[in-house]
């Protein structure tokens, strides 16, 4: 008996050829796993086993596809341009729909997937923050050099970065009376100037799902956020083999929710062996 094989006592009463010994039936067992048709002279027990394995991988029961709507909804949500711009950030509600388990029973979502997307999200958020900070800094310096800052601040700017000194008597020499619509508002204590970033944010589309953060610049400017859902050129997908033919054969009736891919099933196993054979 070879070391990796089971002992005869472990499998009593199995009338496979080669018992006790175990090696002789292995090619036939491999044929079962390979979804190949057994030779006619194979033991009837193996034919029975093949039928049972075929039942094991039998056509889908409609109840087995009950989660399809939730999965498709989540997919559609993430495939939308807004969903793509945020990735897993907007996953919360859909994830809860997909799982019936209470939140405190759900395991950590950190395992196996999502890490690259999370890292991308963090990098994106950091980049956006840095960009906003740079814009504010540049704006402040420009305002200082045009003398548009309030007197005390302009004085500080004059000292620190050699900006023009504040003109005596006028706190905002660049602002002319009657021009409130275009330039800076009048610096009364009750009318604060609206920051440019708020104006920019209000021009971006608003979204209704919970947990959504304000739209990021990438959502409106990035090449992957065009009119279509996803741009193929943005996908670094390596897809060497093209098994779509066999797959389409297994899923022939997409518009109807008939779950059974039975038509493309070849004995002994309907579901997977088609792919294996192909």
């Amino acid at each position, binding site marked *: 008996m070879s070391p990796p094989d089971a002992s005869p006592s472990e499998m009593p009463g199995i009338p496979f050829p080669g018992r006790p010994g175990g090696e002789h039936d292995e090619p036939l067992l491999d044929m079962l796993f390979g979804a190949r048709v057994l030779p006619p002279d194979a033991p009837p027990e193996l034919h029975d086993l093949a039928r049972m394995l075929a039942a094991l991988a039998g056509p889908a029961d409609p109840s087995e596809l009950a*989660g399809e709507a939730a999965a498709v909804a989540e*997919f559609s949500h993430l495939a939308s341009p807004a969903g793509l711009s945020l990735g897993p950030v907007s996953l919360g509600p859909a994830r809860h729909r997909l799982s019936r388990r209470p939140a405190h029973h759900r*395991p950590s979502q950190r395992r196996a997937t999502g890490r690259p997307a999370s890292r991308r999200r963090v990098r994106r958020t950091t980049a956006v923050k840095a960009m906003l900070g740079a814009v504010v800094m540049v704006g402040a310096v420009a305002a200082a050099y045009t003398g548009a800052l309030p007197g005390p601040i302009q004085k500080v700017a004059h000292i620190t970065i050699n900006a023009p000194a504040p003109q005596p008597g006028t706190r905002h020499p660049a602002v002319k009376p009657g021009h409130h619509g275009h330039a800076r508002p009048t610096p009364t204590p009750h009318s604060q100037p609206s920051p440019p970033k708020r104006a920019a944010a209000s021009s971006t589309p608003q979204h209704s799902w919970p947990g959504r953060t304000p739209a990021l610049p990438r959502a409106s400017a990035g090449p992957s956020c065009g009119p279509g859902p996803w741009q193929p050129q943005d*996908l670094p997908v390596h897809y060497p083999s093209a098994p779509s033919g066999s797959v389409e054969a297994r899923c022939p009736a997409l518009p109807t929710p008939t779950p059974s891919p039975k038509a493309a099933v070849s004995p002994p196993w309907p579901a997977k062996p088609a792919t294996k054979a192909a």
Partner: protein
Amino acid sequence: MLAGAQRGDETAFVCLFRDVQPALLRYLRVITPDAEDVAGETWAAVVPGLRGFRGDEEAFRAWLFTIARHRAADAGRSRNRRPAIPVDPGEPVLTEAAGRPAAPDAAEVALEAIATRAALALVAELPPDQAEIIMLRVVAGLDPADVGQIVGKSAGAVRVTSHRALRRLAEAAQRAGVTR
């Protein structure tokens, strides 16, 4: 189909789901009592990562079942109890006495469902490692190397274990009278 789903094609994703979900659910039913929940969590993890996935359909299946196995383990830890097999061993089996419903098509569907449940029940009687490997090889259609990656064994060990499982399964099938 996989490439279409990665591009955002919803039809392709539906096809992908229908192709994989039955196998995923049956596999999970053998290894966890929370099969439906774990399947949902698996898809919740797969969908966001689908776009960045690289590989063919075989690799996708291996990836998905790896996630499912991790989620099932997490669920088992969170509930802190041994996974029970939700399949009723006393389920009617596919024999001559299985009954004869009125409509032929309905009868065929029912018999297939009964046969599937009976086969699942028999697999559930196997030792856990053998049951899992049988499900990954037969239902998920993964090769020994992929199964070995998932369960943490070598391809040779997977092959030996799967042979043992088949022999046990044949014996159990004869005892239960599932076949013929």
